[in-house]
């Protein structure tokens, strides 16, 4: 079953074509990476999937719901995290989680907050203001917010941006465990090639708003005759090398 289906999705701002008629599908329980340089269209695609941005053309279905006409039914079953969208800094961690728990209609909310705090090692910070936390702690709070409603689809925009390698690795390990344990579908936009290689079963390579290649990390490495995805990324970004036919 497909958790996300995107057909001919297009976003145009005046003369600028930010996303150019892309098609893709994400199978339930899969982690798919959106890989591309700055301005490739990753964040724009995620914003359209969330209904935050109205597409110029095309169709999006999430969990069987058409996002143009029935997005609230899908939004209740999905969630999102991005370092570029903050949580209120003057609220404590617990207050922030309470706000989003109520917004998503989470049953037995205090218990859920306790569970997440324990899993994400946030218990000692629950009564601390979000603005007083370190970048790593804030990322864990953002993850707790994104998981408050036990989402079936999780959209992550650069989840480990600005984190030190240790914290970044902690987040990646946690995401792997979470997906394995819940069967959650994850769409991950990232600049971090090692992260995508480790977490994703499929990768969509975006360039100038178009999907220029796709496949599993191993498949891409084989076809581009490279050792790591960073080299594949550079091949595509700089038009250095064409993939060999699959």
């Amino acid at each position, binding site marked *: 079953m497909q958790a996300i289906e995107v057909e001919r999705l297009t976003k145009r*701002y005046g003369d600028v074509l930010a996303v150019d008629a892309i098609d893709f599908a994400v199978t339930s329980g899969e982690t798919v990476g959106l890989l591309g340089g700055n301005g490739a269209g990753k*964040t*724009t695609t995620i*914003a359209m999937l*969330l*209904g*935050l*941005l*109205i597409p110029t053309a095309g169709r999006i279905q999430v969990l069987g719901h058409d996002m143009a006409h029935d997005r*609230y039914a899908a*939004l*209740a*079953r999905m*969630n*999102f995290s*991005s370092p*570029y*969208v*903050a*949580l*209120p*800094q*003057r*609220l*404590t961690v617990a*207050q922030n989680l*309470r*706000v*989003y*728990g*109520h*917004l*998503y*209609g*989470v*049953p037995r909310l205090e218990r859920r907050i306790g569970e997440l705090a324990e899993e994400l090692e946030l218990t000692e910070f629950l009564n601390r203001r979000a603005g007083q936390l370190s970048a790593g702690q804030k990322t864990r709070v953002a993850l707790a*917010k994104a998981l408050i*409603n036990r989402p079936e689809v999780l959209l992550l925009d650069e989840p480990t941006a600005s984190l030190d390698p240790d914290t970044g690795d902690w987040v990646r390990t946690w995401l792997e465990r979470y997906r394995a344990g819940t069967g959650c579908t994850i769409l991950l936009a990232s600049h971090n090639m090692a992260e995508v290689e480790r977490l994703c079963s499929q990768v969509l390579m975006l360039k100038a708003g178009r999907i220029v290649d796709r496949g599993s990390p191993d498949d891409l490495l084989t076809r581009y005759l490279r050792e790591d995805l960073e080299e594949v990324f550079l091949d595509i970004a700089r038009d250095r090398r064409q993939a060999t036919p699959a």
Partner: protein
Amino acid sequence: MIGSPLRRVWAMMYRHLALYRGSWPRLLELAYWPVLQMLIWGFTASFIARRMSAGPGMLAASTLLGGVLLWEVALRSQMGVAISFMEEMWSRNLGHIFVSPLRPWELVAALLGMSVIRMLAGVLPAIAVAYFLYAFNLFTLGPILVLFFANLMIMGWWVALGVVSLILRHGAGAEALAWSVLFGLTPFAAVFYPVSVLPHAMQAVAFVIPASHVFEGMRAVLSDGVVRWGQLVAAFALNAVWTLAAGVLFARQLRQARLRGALLSVGE
């Protein structure tokens, strides 16, 4: 998941109430301006009353104080909505809110709820100051006061919805309107004088502003002890038209913001 519109509205109100719970300067700010206004205009009214004969002096003073207090209802209601919305913008939280199951009308309902709380927290202390310092009891207007309050609150709300729409359209550049736009309408609202003293062109503007009808009604109660129902009906009808217009504008600007991607960047 058990989601209900009421729970989502409460979520947004809780978010703002939590801000006040931990901050006495924020609480103080709510009452600061209404009480300050009342102190300034209260002494002015006392001075005027002492310089005039008892009857006209009392009437002038009570008209002035009633005007100050009721106009604060509109001002605080408008700021209550606009500032609560801007809190979301300043904290770069709009992106999270609009990808949650919260409907736009639920967000507006939460902003209105916060506006009522903020207005009461600001105006009730000012009413108390008027009573204890200047022996002016606003409640002598009688039950009609509820309808005056309702009209002025609704006017504050649609003005705020217009301001929020402009913020969605123009971003942080339109923020200043939240503090200034209703002050700009004060001359036309006939808060301290009858509409008849205005030049004809200004009277035409005053005629379409609900507050002018409320204040004409207030003066009629204070001076003649009569309720001008026609004025109240006019105020409610105008409020209905303006609210509809502001609602349409808000819905359009929200859609435009979703077309432009402004919900992620508004406030920058």
